């Protein structure tokens, strides 16, 4: 079968599917995501079968991983003393038998394995349970906040990588000179300062110098009255401090690693050969050395995505950013089992997908790596 007609066919079907789902009432994100995913898999199947098989295998691996995380987290929450209703025990207006009644209704009086399998059964049907803390379905709560954390994480990663790759290259090519020294200072500072501390320090400084940057939050109070451009600018303004704080640690780490990798590569014989051949230094560094130095970093990318998405809870708390980290934190503190497990599922899924992406990228970038 020729590849090109297949690609056109899938493209047309893809657009049709999205239109159908939109008409059926699906939200934009889901309506685009699902068909895109399916059709890309379909295209891969015809165009590059090994890659398709690789991805399929890795996606299947996700299942036992998520399952084990769920079991572990469920177990740990059960081990913690008390449950979601323990907070109410000190309320003088509530009798203990009312509390017992709540517990029974929530199924907390059943043995833990019964509770767990009930949860699993529901989750497989798409019902991730009901948050007792928020009295709303877990899926809704996570969806409301996932987008906010996603923006932060993606931006932080993009900026971290955008900064650290050139910075690492500069540090390696100008090793031990003043460029290297100054950037090293930044790198070590970024590595050693805890993120929530930096967040708080920044807003403290902003308050005392009366700056135009907002003190935390995601939007202005009057954001609804702004034009679309105004809204975008408002969001950008509010993103500056959180993204800066979240970029510090990853970019510091990446810069150091990039520097080390580059130094390693620049010491290789083929670089000397390239120079001897008469290639300009710029070509040697950027065309040859950089490509090889980036390889190890791609693996890190997968982990970073998962880490940033799942957490940054403390930064979100200090900067009142309405994200997933805060939700998980309040769920854990209140021992709201289903909410914790729902959020963890989301975090683990993203971590695994991030790893998958980095593996695929590696295979695409490095011809020596064969997908097996």
């Amino acid at each position, binding site marked *: 079968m020729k590849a090109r007609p297949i690609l056109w066919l899938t493209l047309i079907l893809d657009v049709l599917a999205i239109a159908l789902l939109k008409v059926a009432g699906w939200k934009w994100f889901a309506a685009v995501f699902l068909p895109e995913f399916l059709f890309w898999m379909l295209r891969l199947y015809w165009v590059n079968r090994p890659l398709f098989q690789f991805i399929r295998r890795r996606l299947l691996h996700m299942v036992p991983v998520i399952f084990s995380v769920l079991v572990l987290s469920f177990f740990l929450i059960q081990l913690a003393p008390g449950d979601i209703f323990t907070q109410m025990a000190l309320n003088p207006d509530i009798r203990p038998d009312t509390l017992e009644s709540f*517990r029974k209704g929530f199924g907390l009086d059943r043995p833990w394995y019964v509770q767990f399998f009930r949860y699993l059964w529901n989750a497989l049907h798409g019902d991730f349970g009901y948050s007792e803390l928020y009295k709303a379905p877990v899926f809704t709560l996570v969806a409301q906040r996932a987008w906010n954390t996603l923006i932060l994480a993606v931006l932080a990663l993009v900026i971290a990588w955008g900064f650290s790759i050139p910075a690492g290259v500069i540090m390696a090519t100008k090793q031990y000179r003043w460029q290297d020294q100054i950037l090293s200072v930044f790198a070590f500072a970024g590595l050693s300062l805890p993120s929530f501390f930096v967040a708080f320090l920044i807003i403290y400084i902003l308050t005392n110098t009366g700056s135009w*940057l907002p003190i935390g939050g995601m*939007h202005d109070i009057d954001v609804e009255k702004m034009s679309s451009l105004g809204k975008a600018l408002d969001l950008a303004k509010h993103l500056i401090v959180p993204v800066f704080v979240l970029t510090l640690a990853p970019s510091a780490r990446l810069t150091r690693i990039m520097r080390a990798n580059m130094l390693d590569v620049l010491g290789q014989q083929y670089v000397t050969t390239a120079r001897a051949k008469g290639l300009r230094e710029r070509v040697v560094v950027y065309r040859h050395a950089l490509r090889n130095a980036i390889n190890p970093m791609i693996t890190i990318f997968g982990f970073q995505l998962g880490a940033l998405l799942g957490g940054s809870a403390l930064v979100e708390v*200090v900067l009142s950013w*309405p994200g997933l980290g805060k939700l998980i934190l309040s769920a854990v503190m209140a021992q709201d089992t289903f909410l914790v497990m729902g959020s963890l599922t989301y975090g683990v899924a993203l971590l695994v997908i991030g790893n998958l992406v980095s593996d695929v990228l590696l295979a695409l970038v490095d011809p020596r790596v064969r997908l097996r």
Partner: protein
Amino acid sequence: MRRVIIASLVILALLAPLSAFAGGKTETPQAQKTEPQKAPETTAQPATKEAKEAAAGIAASRFPGIAEIDYSGWEIGKSGGQIVVAQLSDPKSFNLITAAETSSTDILGRVYEGVVDRNPLTLEFEPRLAEKWEMAADNLSAIFTMKKGLVWSDGKPITAQDVVYTINEIILNPTKDDKGAYILKTNQRDSYRVGEPFMKVELLDDYRFKVTLPSLYAGLLNTMSVAPVPKHIFEPLIKEKGIAAVNSFWGVDTDVTKVVGSGPFVIEQYVPSQKVVLKRNPNYWMKDAKGQQLPYLDKVVYLTVDSLNTQALKFQSKETDILSLRGQDVATFMPKKQELSFELYNGGPAAGSTFVVFNQNPNGLKDTVKLGWFSDIRFRTAIAHLIDKETIINNLMFGFGFPQDSFIPVVSPYYWKDAPKASPEYNPEKAKKLLDEMGLKDTNGDGIREDVKGNRVAFNLITNAGNTVREGVGNLLASEAKKVGLDITFKPGDFNALVTQLTSTYDYEGIIIGLTGSVDPISGQNVYPSKGNMHMIEPLQTAPRRQWEKDVDKWWDYANLTLDDSRRKEGFKNVQEIWLKELPWIHTTNAAAIYGFRNTIGNVKPRPIPSAAGGYLVISQWLYLK
């Protein structure tokens, strides 16, 4: 050349972020105006604020620089404006029936009005949605008459039907599931109990309903501060989907503009984890003395700001208009009053108690030696003599606190005025004497007393980690105790673990804990009588073990199975007296509720006392922008 350009561009790019500190929002601080000197008493015109207040009969400021609040009456304000206030976490529900935590009830308390409620100025009960109530001659029933012409925020009329439906068909709905648990999850059910049986509420006609008590009960008005929910919305819901649907109705995923209420505000917008915007309810019934409709404000915005530190900073950068200050914040904010144009107010002691309690439960504490010590009044009095309330207030609360001697708030009419006198004072010498009397002496010179059998007087004291005042109290007590020869191991720990020890395993030794309080002490009916489940020294007793507990039980019933106020005062006085003599627990201190309000806000009269639908009353319908 190119390198120079690139280098200078990079340096410029690195310096650009410094523009963030260039200002542009607030003006540069003006020169500090000197404090007005106290004018000599030549003219009749008082010059300073303090003198003005003294002239108006307001108590002189207990905390210098912080204004006392004048609770004598409301000013007439004008309509319009918006204020922004921060809250620690966002609401978890917009359903008044099922909402359980303060983040939700704080907001719902502004959206709903009770049948009756306490007047925030006088703290007396007054009719709100009701027109009046009449007690029957035998005080076993009351007929409530609703005001005519009241409407919900969606325009439908508010009648007695709403109240009776809310109580009978929703809160007291008897439907249980197959495990024997009530299907409807609400905290409000138990407030309709007098002992075991429930009150009976019946509809008389469209505007009157009758409440019948199984026995004399002083908490009737407490219970009747219930805020009804609209029958015309809940009845079709329950008919169609059953009572279980109420549990998830009007949750955080709902369209908030559809939440119908009877209070001064309605919810205009909710952005999860970010803000809740309330706007004026055009159908609110209350008017001011001039006939202007309340509330004065157009909008109130609640911003979710998770960290108290960030809240303080937002207030400082004028993003919020009201701040609830902690003791440590006052010193930072005091010099900024002019520059940020706000005033600090002293709301008095926050209702609630913090105390040290020792386990006297023979079924819980298996160590009979320690049980013996804790059960000895001399031991507990000795510990009470070791609690230095002044130091706690000065060091841990930065001076913004009040010593506490009773579980009843000072502003309550049932507070025993002589409680401070009867309370054991800080006196380590007396403590030493009492411990000597008990036979606890340091026989082996290690600085710690032992009893006659050689057991070292050493025990654990715990509290919940994260509460800096309680942790400080514990550390202070441990160091004072060390000086008189007691070895206290103080460990802050997880709150849930603490609660489990207090309410199920009963195996703690000493705990520093606190309880909420309210104007009518009847809210403590699970705490002070010996059969209460929160009678912490030994809960759920079938019959009082100790003579003083018998007396407390007797006086408690005396105070509450009646409506005669003088009897209630007498009863509670005796309970407080016994509590201070027998010291089942030892009260420590209360934080002062210090608020910062922008100068543009008028009618600032917050009350740190729990109100009907929820929360401390800070955002009231009387706030206005000058």
